[in-house]
């Protein structure tokens, strides 16, 4: 079941679009913001609420890279793996984070604190290598800076 908050937040976006089903992408974002991810049940609830079939919705969800269809940790680390960050040595940062967390890309730490994912260019190229944790940008990464940054998230 969608919560009252989720329902009213989705309803508030309906007037942006001429068709109810076009609010689906935003609805998935809203549910994900509340629950961290979008479960099969949540997808079915959104589909029923907006008049979109679940398969159709899932095809949109799985085409996108920012709809989490599996549970994620309390914080999501997105490390940029595009060209500028490659040039500036992101591979070392990726390996450092993986070693520190004990999980590789795609993994969630056993304590549920972090999920570690790659992301396309974050448009922080002048501060490469860069990453985003939740909604916070972190650039000019070094292993030492990463250690200090990760401490801020519990």
């Amino acid at each position: 079941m969608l919560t009252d908050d989720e329902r009213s937040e989705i309803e508030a976006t309906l007037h942006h679009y001429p068709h109810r089903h076009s609010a689906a992408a935003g609805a998935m974002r809203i549910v994900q913001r509340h629950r961290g991810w979008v479960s099969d049940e949540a997808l079915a609830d959104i589909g029923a609420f907006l008049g979109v079939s679940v398969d159709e919705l899932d095809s949109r969800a799985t085409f996108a890279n920012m709809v989490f269809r599996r549970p994620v940790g309390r914080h999501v680390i997105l490390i940029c793996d595009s060209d500028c960050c490659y040039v500036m040595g992101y591979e070392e940062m990726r390996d450092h984070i993986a070693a520190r967390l004990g999980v590789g890309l795609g993994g969630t730490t056993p304590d549920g604190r972090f999920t570690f994912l790659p992301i396309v260019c974050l448009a922080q190229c002048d501060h490469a290598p860069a990453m985003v944790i939740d909604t916070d940008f972190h650039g000019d990464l070094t292993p030492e800076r990463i250690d200090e940054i990760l401490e801020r998230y519990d």
Partner: protein
Amino acid sequence: MTDEPARIGDPDELPLTGAFRVDGSALDLADYEAAGGYQALRAALRDMAPGDVTEAVSDAGLRGRGGAGYATGRKWSFVPMGDDAPPVKYVVCNGDEMEPGSFKDRYLIQGNPHLLIEGMALACYAIGASTGYIFVRDQYDVPHALLARALEEAHVAGYLGEHVLGSRFSLEINLHVSIGRYMCGEASGMLNALQSDRANPRWRPPHMASAGLWSRPTVINNVESLCCVPGIVRLGPERWRALGLTDEGGTRICGVSGRARHTGAWEFPVGTPLREMIEGRAGGMRDGYTLRAVLPGGASTPLIPAGDLDIPMDFDHMKKAGYGLGTATALLVDDSVCPVGLCLNLLRFFAQESCGWCTPCWAGLPWAVGVVNDIEEGRGRPEHLDLLAEQMWFMGEEMCFCDLAPSATKALGTALTIFRDEFESHIADGRCSYRARGSATGAGAAGAAPNGAGPHEGDSPAQPPAPPTPPTPPAPPRRPGGLPGLAPERGR
């Protein structure tokens, strides 16, 4: 005015960024108005017919800043106008900015969100649209929040809503946040994404100017293109055009990333050569590094060798020289970077982001990744270089619905010429000398797994099975060695 903030320049000379605050924080409405903000919209509604605005943009010579460089005024002129025109039309602002190496739209929105709103309002007035959408990517929480606040301010001040500034023109602008994927930045893919459909590209015709968003006439412009419009209207097309160094005219945001002393984005006259940006604004290379090549405007542009930096940076000069301008945010490739590894990184990006629609793209890109990966990891064979050239033909222009695969061949194609010796030495030595040296860039366990592109031979064994989020494009064909059999006839 005593409390007016320090600005970085004169808005008459730097129409995009002149009004920016020196401290980098976003302008609010009062700030923007104090710098001449919304004067263009006011003047247009008072003195200009919609067609006059389109004509001004055409006369100014504005070309799309998203990378393709299509003439903006011409694009607008295709929209049906007059009493017989469809009553509902749309302007969509492309703020997806997922092109690797591009960071100019974020800079513009974070500096002055009202400039984009005024540009949108002028575009909507010009084509007779009463609804606009600003499409921003998922990670742009700060630009999104700034735009949301600016839209509210503009509403209260009467620049949006019913009867803008007391005129007959009404306008609503909505913000739409992407759920992610590079294809959402392709114009027709963006319309599908806005409709909450899969962001596959659309076949044209019908062109979007006649049947775009929800099948209504639609214009899609990049953030920077729209941000140019208030300056064009305020200064007049002749004066705006004269700001440039070449016939194309105007100003644009150019950026420098990589191992320069000072990386960043700045507004330059159109036609400023790369050398001035790199050696002037960016202060040259950091000590100990030598520039070898430049990727001048995102992942979709050809590499420029370091000896060829004096070409005026506009669409025509770059094209005539055999390069491309793209988004004009330049990545510097220095001598610590393995060119083969860089090509592999770019190809993996495109392979991962293919929407799976066209065969040359979904099949060709993973094959190219496989071949370049073999070369990078020391399993390359001399015939692989011809094979790559053949694959690039297979993925070239007009083979696909959209430009994703053709774009992917640009940097690789030029790298095979500029860095031919590097590819050959990888093959002859059976290894990557950069990795062997352990340089910061070439080092690391192995190539990163592109999200969702499936496992590659070089993936770290520590990698857990499948990431939870990323999409699952068609699995790349598993190839033990070189690519057998694929021999499309050479068409040119």
